């Protein structure tokens, strides 16, 4: 796997053949499938390119596979309740799960439960991290979407209850899906809701930028990587495309009334529950309750391929293939720890081994280590000294040495020749 390869990962709720399956984006061949259990909506996530996690439908545990061992369930993480949404941070450090109306927040390296954020009033529907893992957004059935700053959530001060950075409260019915764009804290968030609107927000200020009212409730939403288009999956099976940057310089627009970017992808017959766009923004993946996942060409709005499933599609996502996925011998760099079910602070009070976390504050107070740059400098000077010596150093002695070596080569050649003659004589004699 030399070039970065994009794959389609899907899961359905029936899971007769497999829990979740991996397809090639362009050929549509089934590459891998992971077995055991089934995965509920918006809970399939890849941790650090090494594990696949998916919450069991209607049960209170999370299935974990090592990404290269497709057949075998690696472990089950038991949670305090039914997990309705699950996501891991892109940098692979944290795991956030929506359980009832609270967000549970784990540190993956230790398995510590860092925080339980219960600011929602009803069940959570969706959780997303920004691409730089600095913030995450939670949305729920209480019409609210909350923007959390990771720095405020991850702290050991037990007296301080984390507050969301923004409360996005302009929807009037439950939020069904959420997409967070690129660019870290400058990202835009798209939220879809049963109130038939899709809203676009700015993460940094929490302002509403755009609200589009549709004829049907919207079940899923996504943006293409350039954020030129907004794709909204409706509850009637249509996918609506809203152009966000339509150029207004249009002299000949009257002729092409259809192609001004606001179009419909028709093909699904039931709720479109998941949407995802490929890295180059040309392909759109949609999963629906009509038990198919479809791949669309965005430019021409045609369905390229339909992947049949045995039940309503719960997760369908296009992502870059993790490095380990197709190497059966590889192993994860770090084993997944046991995830704690109690808050970290309560463990602290027990007094046992509280020094797990080591913060190195005051970098300059310690003895300064050499920086990498300095080390590199040193190494470079060392190496250049060696070559200098070899090339330019002590002309006299080197000449002598060359002469010695040549002599030795001569003798070796002579010995070799003698050996050859001797052996040929020996061989010819016998015959």
């Amino acid at each position, binding site marked *: 796997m030399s070039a970065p390869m994009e794959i389609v990962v899907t899961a359905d709720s029936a899971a007769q053949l497999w829990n979740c399956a991996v397809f090639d984006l362009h050929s549509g061949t089934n590459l891998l499938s992971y077995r055991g259990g089934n995965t509920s909506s918006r809970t399939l996530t890849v941790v650090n390119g090494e594990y696949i996690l998916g919450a069991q439908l209607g049960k209170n545990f999370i299935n974990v596979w090592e990404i290269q061992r497709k057949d075998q369930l690696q472990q089950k993480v038991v949670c305090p309740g039914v997990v309705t949404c699950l996501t891991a941070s892109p940098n692979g450090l944290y795991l956030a799960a929506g359980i009832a109306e609270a967000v549970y927040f784990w540190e993956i390296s230790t398995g510590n439960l860092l925080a339980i954020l219960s600011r929602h009033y009803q069940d959570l529907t969706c959780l997303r991290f920004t691409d730089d893992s600095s913030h995450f957004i939670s949305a729920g059935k209480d019409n609210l979407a909350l923007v959390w700053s990771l720095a405020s959530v991850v702290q050991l001060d037990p007296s301080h209850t984390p507050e969301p950075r923004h409360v996005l409260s302009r929807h009037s*019915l439950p939020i069904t899906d959420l997409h967070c764009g690129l660019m870290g804290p400058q990202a835009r968030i798209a939220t879809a809701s049963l109130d038939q609107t899709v809203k676009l927000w700015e993460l940094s200020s929490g302002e509403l930028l*755009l609200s*589009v009212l549709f004829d049907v409730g919207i079940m899923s939403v996504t943006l293409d990587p350039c*954020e030129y288009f907004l794709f909204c999956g409706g509850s009637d099976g249509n996918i609506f495309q809203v152009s*966000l*940057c*339509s150029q207004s310089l*249009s002299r000949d627009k009257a002729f092409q009334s259809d192609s001004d970017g606001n179009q419909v992808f028709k093909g699904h017959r039931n709720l479109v529950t998941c949407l995802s766009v490929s890295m180059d923004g040309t392909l759109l993946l949609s999963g629906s309750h009509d038990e198919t996942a479809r791949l669309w060409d965005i430019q021409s709005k045609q369905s390229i391929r339909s992947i049949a499933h045995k039940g309503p599609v719960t997760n369908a996502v296009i992502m870059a293939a993790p490095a380990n996925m197709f190497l059966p011998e590889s192993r994860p760099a770090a084993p997944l720890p046991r995830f704690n079910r109690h808050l970290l602070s309560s463990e602290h009070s027990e007094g046992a081994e509280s020094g797990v976390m080591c913060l190195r504050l005051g970098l300059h107070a310690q003895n300064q280590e050499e920086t990498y740059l300095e080390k590199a400098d040193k190494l470079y000077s060392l190496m250049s000294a060696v070559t200098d010596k070899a090339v330019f150093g002590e002309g006299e002695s080197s000449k002598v040495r060359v002469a010695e070596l040549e002599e030795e080569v001569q003798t070796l050649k002579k010995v070799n020749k003698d050996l050859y003659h001797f052996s040929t004589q020996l061989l010819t004699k016998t015959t």
Partner: protein
Amino acid sequence: MKAKKKKRQDDFQKVKLKVGKKKPKADNVTNTNFRSKGIHLSEQLKKDSSGPTTHRQLGINDLLSQLHHYSGNVKQGALSGLRELLSVNPSLLEQHLSRLLSEVAAVFTDKDGNVRMSATRLLRFIAQCVPADRAAPFFPLLSAHLSCAMTHIETGIQEDAMKVLDVLLEHYPALLAARPAILLTNFLELISHRRTSGGTKKAQETKGRSWSLSVNPNRAVTGQQWRLTVLLRLGRFLQAVVEERPVEEGDVLVPTEGVFGSSGEGGFTPLDLNWEELTYSKAGVKVYEHSGAKPTPHSTYRLRPEVDPGAGVCEGLGSAEAVQAFATTLVPLLLEVWVEASANDCPWNSTEGTHLLTPDAMSIMFQVLSILQLLRKLAPQKEHQDTLDSWFRNEYLGDFNQHFMKNFPYGTLDTPKQKKKLDSKRIKQTAVVPGQTVEPLALNITLCQVMVSLSQRQEAGQETDADWLIPLRSFVRDTLANGVKLSYKQLHMLLDTVWRMVLTQRSKAVTEDLLAAVYVYYQQRNLPLLTRSLLLSFYSKLYLQEQGHTHIARSKMLCRWLAALPVQLSHLGHRNPALSARLILSIQAAASRGNKDLLSSLQTHACRLYDPQEGVVVLLPAESQQQLVQLLYFLPKISQSLLAKLSRCCTAGRISAGLAASLIRIVHFRSSLSGWSVGSQEAALQDVDYISFLFSTLIGFSSDELATLQEASEESALPPSPLSPLSLYPTPLEQFTHHWDVVEEVCHCLETLGSQSQCFDIVQNGICKYVTRLEVVPDSMAAGLLRAVSRLLDLSVLPSEPVLRFLSQCCLSLLALLLTLEQEAPSETNHKREAIWSACVSALSTVPRLLRMVLQSLRVGDLCEEELPQLGQMLSTLLQHTPLRNHLLANATLLQHIIQDLTRYSRGETREQWLTDLLYCYSVTVAHGSSTHRGNLGLRDMY
């Protein structure tokens, strides 16, 4: 003769002159007592040289130059002349504005009082005409002269400067507020003087205060009066500064005070789009400014410090430190003023416990308090406000406590004896301070607000605030609960006080106490709309704050208020849509949070709210209707009776088809059949109820309506005939299209239910049970049923005989109706015709047995003469429809039979046009069919 002689003598009579007598004048003497005058043609000469003049023929240049005259009268005359001139010729104002302003400003400091007065008057006139942006370039000059006048050594000039300031405050508050630094010091100098460093001993006493109140015995008014005037202006000025500050967006979480009256949405207006508009309009969406590279200025992130720190500091009140510095000088002065005012009339302590004050003292105290209040608001940013509050608390809490709270509930002193004495004086005073009568209530409320703003969030074990908050609390409670008439502003301030107390005190008892008082006020009848909505938003804001405040969340009063909302909504009806919208907003907020009290109350009153006849859902405007429909989602249980009402709502046409569709969709999402569920939410309704809801919505008419239709068939419905076996009731066009849209949505819901065959079975049973026995059928219902059957049927299911028969009757009658509609052919019925036609054709092509049944039921022999052409037309249109052709061919024998009958019955002598058409169509179809005959052999097996 004699007479002639006499005459001659008369002519030459000698005049005798005598000594001592005046010499008579000669007849030819020249009269020199006239005066000569020059002729002035002043107007004629001046007109072409310069512009218009006053009635004294003075041009603007003359008048302006007269302002430099030494005589006061001349100057005054010039000023009034200018006013006259400018009011007649406003165009002059634009040309000479710079000169005018500079000259007028120069006489602010004139020695003559009358001149100053008319200068002020002229300035007022100019200010009325010139907008602020055009006056802006001259404003530095104006304010320089103003501060010159304010700091003038003559008291009269100082006093008149106040009037100039009034004018400027009234017309150019923004310009004044832009440079507050100099003016503030001027204000201070007006009522006090800077201590020189000489009085070291005194300075130590007053803890380094460098300013003290000054008394000037030369003034025309008392020191107190004078201070009042100055403080009044200072208050107005600070008000202007506060108001002109760029409004920051109200973050939802930060408990900003005073926002529950406003809408709270600041700064940024989001784009609101509709999918329909978006598809058809050519206008592009541009969401990102500067192509999204920079975040909007509303971003709360401050990664780097602002580039120009200098600008903010030197502006005067731009930073918290500057405000603090100003406050350190001002607050001691204000305290002194307060003490002076209260000391003057200390002795009267009334029996009711209120401390009585004279009106003068009252108004001066009120000014002091409102200035303190404004000082708090001066903090440039929200985070600064908190630091400023705590600073105030640290510095002055003790002082405030001592002075303000000593005699807290203040009352007005109103003794008639006093009044008489002061009568003459009072006239003078009212001239100085116009319209300043301060009610004690306002004073007390302001005091509450100032003091409460100092109270801090209580930590554990810190009970220091409680003692002085008690009288405040009891005052607030009594004022609210006793039904005192309050103005909007006063109520706003009171609610603000309550808000802060509830948030800072964090005790359940206090919260209950205060909220109960507010609730008493809320329950009063006939409150004006503004007040009512203020109270509503107070409550809803408080409710939204509950997170993290358990004492609020558990407050019984709040729960009671929430539970009462649905009742109020249903009582309000359509009388006040704005208030209803507010109520619905609050209900929605609570419902989305799953508040149990509200939900149970909503559930009990749901039937009344969603009544199809007089429920609010049909009475309110469209936006509120939509929100009400969305509320349905949150109902924990949707009962049968409610579903029946909802179904009627959908079909009755009082809500739009789109809204009806979203209602059906919401009910769909709450059923267990929707398939979309996150977490553990129970289905709100049983599947049986849901399906019967869908079916009755599909039918579109209640059983009562259908029954009355059966009765009153003769006059309204089309009579049955052999060609249309059912008697169709023609629905109005709007109702038809509405019903058609609803049917589409219902069909979509039914399609997604799961097993299609079972679903069809259910619909079939429903039709069999309720509809087949009808004789009069509305056309919309017939078309809807055909549409639903054709959408739901899959090939594995065989429809039952009675249903098919009924449907075939429907189909035939509709086709007949179509023909009559075509004859009328008004363009409005186009949509209806298309809908009926598509329903018939799709039903006929998806259910082949239906087609056969239709053909079988065509008995040509029973038809009368006039109906034959109709039948022929009907058949030929069906034959022309290509998708049907194969199915018709499958029934070729039947068709042939009918056509033979037709030709036989139509008395072959004149072969009419319709018959020719029909035969042609038939032959084409048959010819087409013979070529593809083999392919159709399989088709026959279907029957």
